[in-house]
């Protein structure tokens, strides 16, 4: 028995490792993705006033604090049984769409993109955003930095702060827009839409026109047939802020469509001894272990899963790209046949990026966002509420129970990446199984290809790579059973 350890990998909280066990034939016997982190928000929020949750839970994640802010605000609205004014909803959604555009952009260019632009086996020193700028031109770098800055600026105008925004409270938002601010946001949103079009072209030129990459995307090593979860509007189109959660099975048939407050009827979490992070699964299927397929309870909640769970996009450019996505990968542009290739998640992310940018502009041009009616003062006795949004990395659920003063008695959270925990573990294992064989040299390129299996998910530990130059640290050590290091391969 030999053991490969990939330790450390970066993730949101900066800690994570992969243990791969090899059998005597030199093949992968088992593989564990271990999350050694726990902070305990669900317990220490008890006793806090519920209206503070949109400000406290942002600290779960500084990369996607917007997602926690929105889920918490929606849960607060539900706890107080208050309907927020239409303008408040649109302002929240405007902030959220801008955030989504920036977040997907950073993942596409800084995390996922370099693997394709520079090649999965390119020298490590080049396979990052700096290398990409060198290859694609300084203009690309300027566009990426500009798009991130534009998205952040919209968030700051509406939320008060770029990171850990504060403006949503039970009943609405505390910050409206002046005409000048609105005009500025329209200009920024136009910039984001242009950036979306540009990104489609980059995707096309760099990835889709390269047969090697298309073959890589379609290969069995990166394919898992799983159920798909995502939030949809009344026409079953992708929505990030509001709607019902739809789950389709491996063949694209609807398993269930439910309101966020019903989540406990449909989702449960499994515990393992070797990871602090739990493993959500579909209750209708039950926990059957780390297996894919129709009978498994494992599902994905990623950009790819959201497209699979939906029947289209709500904006024109994104819809056109949605159709091209499915026509290319399944032959059916309707999207009724799901795509199961994990690496296609990058393409799905770009479809979502375009939608988020178009929706940002749509909302910015909506005259109602200038309305001064931004708050409904809650009058009902607070008790219990669920808030749900689509975080970039999966469906995010906040569930609060309070006393009659609105002081929290119970808190339950199912966070974006947690949904994908089992799927990520399985994707890493399958990639390792497909790539590590007897006699195969453990090369840098091989390590990177294992990494690509989880990078597609943009999991929270990969939020880390929303940065320059976007390199994941990785060490694989080949150990004898007594722990002696037999061989080691590191990124240089």
């Amino acid at each position, binding site marked *: 028995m030999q053991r490969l350890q990939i330790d450390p990998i970066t993730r949101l909280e*900066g800690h994570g490792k992969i243990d791969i066990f090899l059998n005597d034939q030199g093949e992968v016997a*088992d593989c564990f993705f271990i999350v050694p982190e*726990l902070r305990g928000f669900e*317990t220490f929020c008890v*006793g806090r006033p519920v209206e503070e949750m949109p400000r406290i839970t942002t600290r779960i994640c*500084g990369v996607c604090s917007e997602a926690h802010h929105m889920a918490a605000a929606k849960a607060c609205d539900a706890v107080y049984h208050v309907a927020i004014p239409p303008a408040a909803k649109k302002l929240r959604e405007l902030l959220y769409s801008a955030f989504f555009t920036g977040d997907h952009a950073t993942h596409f260019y800084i995390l996922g993109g370099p693997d394709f632009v520079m090649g999965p086996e390119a020298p490590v020193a080049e396979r990052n955003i700096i290398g990409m700028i060198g290859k694609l031109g300084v203009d690309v770098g300027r566009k990426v930095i500009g798009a991130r800055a534009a998205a952040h600026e919209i968030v700051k105008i509406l939320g008060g702060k*770029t990171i850990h925004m504060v403006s949503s409270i039970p009943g609405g938002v505390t910050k409206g827009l002046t005409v000048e601010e609105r005009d500025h946001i329209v200009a920024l949103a136009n910039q984001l839409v242009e950036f979306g079009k540009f990104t489609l072209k980059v995707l096309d030129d760099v990835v889709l026109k390269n047969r090697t990459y298309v073959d890589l995307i379609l290969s069995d090593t990166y394919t898992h047939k799983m159920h798909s979860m995502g939030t949809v509007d009344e026409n079953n189109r992708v929505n990030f802020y509001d709607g019902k959660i739809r789950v389709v099975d491996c063949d694209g048939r609807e398993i269930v469509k439910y309101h966020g407050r019903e989540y406990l009827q449909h989702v449960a979490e499994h515990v393992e001894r070797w990871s*602090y992070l739990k493993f959500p699964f579909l209750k209708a299927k039950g926990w059957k272990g780390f297996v894919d397929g129709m009978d498994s309870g494992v599902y994905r909640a990623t950009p790819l899963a959201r497209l699979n769970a939906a029947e289209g996009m709500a904006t024109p450019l994104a819809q056109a790209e949605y159709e091209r996505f499915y026509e290319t990968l399944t032959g059916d542009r309707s999207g009724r046949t799901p795509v199961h290739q994990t690496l296609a998640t990058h393409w799905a992310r770009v479809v979502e990026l375009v939608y988020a940018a178009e929706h940002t502009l749509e909302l910015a041009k909506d005259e109602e966002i200038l309305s001064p009616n931004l708050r409904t003062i809650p009058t009902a006795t607070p008790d219990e509420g669920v808030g749900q949004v689509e975080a970039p990395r999966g469906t995010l659920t906040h569930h609060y129970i309070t006393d009659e003063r609105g002081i929290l008695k119970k808190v339950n959270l199912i966070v974006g990446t947690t949904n994908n925990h089992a799927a990520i573990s399985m994707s890493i294992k399958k990639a390792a199984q497909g790539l590590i064989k007897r006699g195969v040299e453990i090369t840098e390129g091989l390590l990177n290809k294992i990494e690509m299996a989880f990078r597609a998910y943009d999991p929270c530990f990969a939020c880390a790579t929303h940065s320059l130059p976007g390199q994941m640290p990785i060490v694989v050590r080949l150990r004898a059973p007594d722990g002696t290091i037999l061989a080691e391969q590191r990124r*240089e």
Partner: protein
Amino acid sequence: MNSTQSNPKPKLALYWAASCGGCEIAVLDIQDKILDVAAFFDLVFWPVAMDAKIKDVEAMDDQAIDLCLFNGAIRTSENEHMAQLLRRKAKILVAFGSCAYEGCIPALSNTTTRQATLDWIYRDSPSTVNPENVRPQTGTDTPLGKLELPEFWETVRALDQVVEVDYYVPGCPPQAHQIWAVLETVMDIMKNGKPLPPPGLVLGAGDKTCCDECLRPREEKKIKKFVRPHEIIPDPNRCLLDQGILCCGPATRSGCGALCPAVGLPCRGCYGPPPNVHDQGTKMISALASVIDSEDPEEIDKILDGIVDPVGTFYRFSMAKATLGRVQFNGKTSM
């Protein structure tokens, strides 16, 4: 990575322990100036951004790193191990951001217990299905080998409660312009051989209170009743505390630009206590004591009842440094 034999650059490390990632994103929000930082320093360890290996840090000489910006609280054995390792390797260790400085929101966990946390997450939470009451273990034997997790501790600590710290940068997260101001100063000192400021200093913040940066006009405070932020629509041109909304501005160091009050929400204290104040919560209590408009003990009690979560509000960001330290349970402290 970029150092040359002839002209070695100062070595910079950035690390995160128990944190949310916001400090790392805030560093990136200095935009293209990050390239100046990368040009000046040899970035030897920065897991968020580059090829960074603990083993490489372990292999360095002691004090080989010139500057280490450490964010995140100390929550697990792994966090502490990294704090000790980086203290040994770094000449200057900076507690960067509220978590490392004073525990921040993760330290609200010091108002509950490890056991309660684990019981809820792995047994009692409504979405958990765990009939065999499985708990994550620091060591799990499998037929193939042992899997390991770090120890999850009873108490969340700030960085200087574990190792010696040279400087502090407050904020949740520190604002980008403050981060750049700190880095620019440090680069200037290193470039020109200037003396370092005295250790223990708070960098990247102001020397007044948040109220001094707030644009809302203040009056003489006479508070008859506290209201919660969602209960009223405040006058945009008046101090929030004057209107009865509990605002921690008087007990919070300046430096952020009073961003929260600018959008109609009270300060919650993320920049930590003002200069010469050790305990932020006590400072807040003292500030409130002077503005409650009553001499009648009964009425005062009634007014104070409007403060629904004193510990979680006054110590929202500084629980690890609070004088009270730990909340008591059933007559027993849980330290």
